[in-house]
């Protein structure tokens, strides 16, 4: 019944080789506590999988539930433009309890973003991209965060390192790689 999530695109945030045999897509919200819980797990999973894994993060901010989620996503997108997306992504998840505007400005400084870039991000410069991530996720069956997809298939199993590495390894070994556009 679902369309499936959109294929990996040029403006996606990707860690790992484009020709990795398995792709893990996370739909996440920087202020969502469950995404915060998943963050170190996914880090460990990336480490274990090494070059066999391509990891993609897409925005799924629930902005009425999480008041700082939109701006956190905007900061991360500004960081992506400056080539430091993953540093921003990590910083946000590692400081999930301090995502107010002032803290975000501090992280922007730490990431070397200039203030004008942040102001323009907060004014909505990247909102189309964030919205596209969100809607693509909804159409693909994302119903909350974090939602994980392995080679385009929704992963509903337990979110611990072992289970994820097992599922990813199986997909890497047995399945055709997710088509690279």
């Amino acid at each position, binding site marked *: 019944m*679902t*369309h499936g999530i*959109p294929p990996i695109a040029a403006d996606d945030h990707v860690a790992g080789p484009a020709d990795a045999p398995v792709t893990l897509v996370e739909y996440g919200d920087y202020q969502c506590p469950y995404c915060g819980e998943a963050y170190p797990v996914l880090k460990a999973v990336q480490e274990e999988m090494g070059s066999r894994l391509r990891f993609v993060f897409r925005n799924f901010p629930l902005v009425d*539930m999480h008041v700082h989620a939109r701006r956190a996503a905007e900061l991360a997108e500004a960081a992506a433009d400056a080539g430091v997306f993953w540093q921003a992504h990590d910083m946000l998840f590692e400081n999930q309890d301090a995502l107010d505007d002032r803290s975000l400005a501090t992280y922007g400084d730490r990431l070397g973003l200039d203030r004008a870039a942040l102001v323009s991000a907060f004014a909505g410069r990247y909102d189309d991209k964030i919205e596209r991530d*969100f809607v693509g996720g909804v159409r693909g*069956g994302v119903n*909350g965060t974090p939602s994980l997809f392995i080679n385009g298939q929704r992963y509903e199993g337990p979110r611990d390192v072992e289970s994820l590495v097992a599922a990813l390894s199986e997909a890497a070994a047995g399945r055709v790689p997710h088509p690279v556009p």
Partner: protein
Amino acid sequence: MTDETAPGAEAPLPPGMRAPDFTLPATPDQRLSLSEMRGHPVILAFYPADWSPVCGDEVGLLNAVLPEFHRFGAQLVGISTDGVWCHAAFAADRKLHFPLLADFEPKGEVALRYGVYRAAEGVADRALFVIDAEGVIRWSYVSPLGINPGADGVLEALEQLSPKTHAEGAPA
């Protein structure tokens, strides 16, 4: 506690049927009728209870997808057997931008008429209906109580009602 249970014994009203009209309290001093929303697609989201974790996720998600529903001109209403004050507190807490209707007295009557009342528990199923502008049910779906059904099914149903309005937003 009833998370894994299957949908209630009654079958939900199927597509093609006229959606039964109803009038339910939306706030302590306002009532809303389905017939008032005629002329626009309407999404009815029945759910078991305010405050329960999965409902929270489901209504939070539907709330976030509301701008997409509005692009189709569709109105979203939530319906549970909770009372108006409970709804008011829940809606304020979750910053909901759509009405929650209280199917409270006679309890669950509307859910029953739509075939999505769980008499044993006294709550509505987790059920979604998409009703077209003429008041005909075009899509319905009941998910297990503990599973947040997401919004993709609703969007697909809305898209089929009005393929033209959404053409530019459809994924390639």
